């Protein structure tokens, strides 16, 4: 069974934000909610690198383990999804997430943040696949359509990889071998407790 992963090749990422607007476009994500973001370190200095980050769909996801209402579930593809019907907006997952992925429509105290929103790996939620009901709450379900997350599909420099973890690791390995350098698979140790050895 293929295990879905994200991998951002920081040596390719130019911080163009295509991934960010592709996500907004595909799911009509409202202003202020950012399922995906690009983070730049050493901005303006030699060694400047950017990484596109969203929910990494972790193995043994920490968000799921802290959720008081158990709204998270992991699919057989290892995509971490959640039910907005169950979510109470407590914000625990936000504090648990090592990547800062969970987003809330409002800021407030316990329970008043509104339903949590995050990257679904373009795989919708608990409503029936590819229905309007699912779209309204979670956005498109590209995975069910035989596609991959649009952020990765539209990445300008082919920096952001998505899909079968083994295949994308192999693609990344090939790049590192060819070019002779690689900053490593960002976030993989934290998310998947593994790394890519070249």
């Amino acid at each position: 069974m293929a295990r879905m992963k994200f991998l951002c090749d920081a040596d390719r990422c130019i911080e163009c934000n295509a991934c960010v607007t592709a996500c907004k476009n595909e799911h009509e994500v409202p202003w202020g909610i950012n399922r995906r973001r690009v983070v730049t370190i050493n901005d303006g200095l030699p060694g400047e690198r950017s990484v596109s980050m969203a929910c990494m769909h972790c193995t043994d996801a920490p968000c799921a383990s802290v959720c008081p209402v158990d709204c998270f579930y992991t699919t057989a593809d290892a995509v971490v999804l959640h039910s907005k019907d169950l979510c109470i907006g407590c914000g625990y997952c936000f504090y648990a997430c090592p990547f800062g992925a969970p987003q809330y429509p409002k800021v407030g105290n316990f329970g008043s943040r509104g339903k949590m929103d995050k990257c679904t790996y373009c795989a919708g939620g608990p409503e029936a696949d590819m229905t309007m009901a699912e779209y309204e709450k979670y956005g498109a379900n590209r995975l069910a359509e035989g596609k991959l997350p649009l952020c990765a599909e539209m990445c300008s420099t082919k920096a952001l990889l998505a899909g079968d973890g083994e295949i994308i690791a192999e693609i990344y390995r090939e790049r590192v071998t060819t070019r002779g350098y690689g900053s490593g698979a960002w976030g993989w140790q934290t998310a998947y407790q593994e790394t890519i050895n070249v």
Partner: protein
Amino acid sequence: MLVKRKSGQAGRSRLQSAVAGLASATLDRRSFLKRSGLAVGGLAAAGTLGAGTVRKAAAGPMMEGVEVDIRKNICTHCSVGCTVTAEVQNGVWTGQEPSWNSPINRGTHCAKGASVRELVHGDRRLKYPMKRQNGEWVRISWDDAFSEIGQKLVELRENSGADSVYWLGSAKFSNEGSYLCRKLAAFWGTNSVDHQARICHSTTVAGVANTWGYGAMTNSYNDIRNSKTVIFMGSNAAEAHPVSLQHILSGKEQQQANVFVFDPRFTRTAAHATEYVRMRSGTDIAVIWGIMHHIFANGWEDQDFIDARVFGMDEVRAECEKWTPERVENVTGIPGEQLRRVAETFATQKPATFIWCMGGTQHTVGTANVRAYCNLLLATGNVGKAGTGANIFRGHCNVQGATDLGLDISNLPLYYGLTEGGWRHWSRVWEVDYDYFVSRFDEVPAKAGREARTREQNMQTPGIPSTRWFDATLLDAEEVDQRDNLKAMIVLGHGGNTVPRQPEVKAGLEALELLVVVDPHPTSFASLHARPDGTYLLPAATQFECNGSRTCSNRSIQWYEKIVDPIFESATDYWIMYRLAQELGFAEEMFKNIEMVEGKFGPEPSAESLLREINRGGWSTGYCGQSPERLKAHMANQDKFDLVTLRAPADAPDVGGDFYGLPWPCWGTPEVRHPGTHILYNSEVHVMDGGGNFRPRFGLERDGVTLLAEGTSSVGAELDDGYPEFTMAVLRELGWDGDLTAEELSQIERQGGDDVDAVSWSTDLSGGIQRVVMEHGCVPFGNGKARAVAWNLPDPVPQHREPIYTPRPDLVAEFPTRDDAREFRVPNIGHTVQQAAIDKGIPESFPIVLTSGRLVEYEGGGEETRSNRWLAELQQDMFVEINPADAAERGITDGGWVWVTGPENDSRARVKALVTERVGKGAAFMPFHFAGWYQGESQRGNYPEGTDPIVLGEMVNQITTYGYDPVTGMHEGKATLCQIEAA
């Protein structure tokens, strides 16, 4: 809203430490801006949307059970030419999918391309025609708009002449729209017709064409995959042309290529280079001569190439000798050892390519800069082969096409000159009397000691560049070399904030009698001033709402389909120009050979038929072989084209052997099936495989030295030495005229009249000359040498000249700007301004060098992209980048408000400070996409309700200053002085 943003912020800093492993990582431009809070007009409430849900169901990317139509169009932002695949349901654009088959973008986009669907949601678009009446915007009908505008134009023509009306067209037009706009100006009777190329690459076009024949990118984005060494100079492609980096980074990895970035600013592109070279703005020529100094001193030049294919390199060599490493370092700030390393690498690790953009072109010495770059390529033999070349990244999606189609003050479509020959050629194609056009132009009286001009002479005189239109409005009439001042601006798809001296632009706008803005958005032309009357806003459709062709930077022409009908009351450019022509009384003549189709508001010219007319006249540039049918076949067969060579296999149906998009020149009629030219001047292949050589267009010899190539010609040519362009006389001399068909010959004889011998490859409407010449393996325009020295231009060998506002007044005596002169109907007093600046001690009171440039999420004047909520969210504030040392001296904090002031017009702009090492000490950078604030005041109220862009900000061009390239009128947008203080 503010508080809500904080949740995002917290997430962000967490993210940052997660990836960096540091809590104190440097913040980037976006976290800085988010941290600075939100002052976003009009969207404050939107953030409260979607309590727990994504959005309300309506026209979303999936309407259950509704059939999905797939339409292919091309991104309307930069010149890379990314295919946009749209899903359309019930006439609504509901989804955007990757376009895997495009050899250009292979599915990908940048932030702008990935959000183009929003443009036809259009909540901030102009929705219907409007005019300003007693200071209020009122809605009017299209018919009333046309008739009022038409009447006013006729009145102006009577009182002040045809030249009192300026037609400012667009690099966002299709090729067909560009052509139509140029043709419209010709029928109106003025050469004051221009577009954005003036302010981005006019100096490139002039410099490059004067070096080797055509003013365009020689290779392609894809071909850079072959390069072993790449220099970017004044190009930040990672932000301006993000998808090009896909090819460049992949090539860099596979070739282990050297990538050098020369820039005053450590750009996002520099972050991916193998070496960054910081230089002082406006010293390009000194840098290039400094590189070539090392090349010549070490014998790294390609002497065989120079001998066979270059004229005048010795004069350049002599100039380079003067540029010793010490002198170069003094002027440019670059250490000699670093330049030596660049020189050796570029000259010896080949193929090498040189990429430049507006950092090179937007200078008083723009044309000379460009010729210096070309000289570096020529000296090292890096032109005309895979992986080499002058890879000029054009700016807008069809700025190459609009340039080609003559949306320009100094030529007709496809670079036919304003000479009698050029006019006669197009008169023949249009089947309109040459004398009709003569009659449309003004007679110009003698003024201020200048001679009068007849109508015909005026018809051959270049118009006013878009950078100077307001001078032609504001100057004393005696100073403007035409019948009267400029009184009306018709602006079609063009921002107003993109030229310097905005306080004077504002005054110019206020002085106009008529201002017509044809655009999807009001633009700063509508918001900068408070004209009470005489301003019209006409809602134009985007290119996603019509069909046609556009030419990417690499000269590939792509045909695109309409995705949805024009939204609201918007109309296509085709219809708008047709209706204007109707109102002005020449529609029948102008469209006599154009097929009309039923459009949204009635008959409009068909794009296919316009392209066919372009084909019928496009011989000079090889725009003759790209019929609509061939281009459509290319779009339908994108998957057949190779990623690197851009060529389809010989056996591919419909497109066999073609290069993708039939990059011009694509010689002969479509039936000849020339494959297009992927790499210009490539003599290693047959002309029918896209081969060529340099174009002899400057005579046959100079100072007793031949200007034809020596001992070399392209593969398969029956003439194995240099040869001139082909005319009937040459054909007869060679005995090749017998190969013409009877039909071809009869056309040539008919149009040649009593001088059949003079009919040439570029005027023969039968295409016979081109066909026959290519059968003999020859290139229609001849086989000449490139020119290292352009004796017809100012500074035949490019000379370093200090910017008008220079931080180094000590260098001005040795490197002054050029003397004052009259250019393009107005005075250019750069020299006076430079002297005055020194006399007034400007370098002391304004000690920081200011440069400008692009951000990835916005484009051009920015109105469209700042109106797109998905993009606007990413960049909410105008800012200035300032070095930490300069900031500390001034008590400026990161994220704090500052005033940036400039040396002219008491100009000042209130912006946020981004304190960063990205700019060196003594340098500052501001993006040029902002407008809607003026000297600290928001002008949101000047926009018609609901059409104000989400994000507004101060214009950098309030601060930028005087300075114009003598060859093209390009403004100085990259090197001026400013002062910055905490607000």
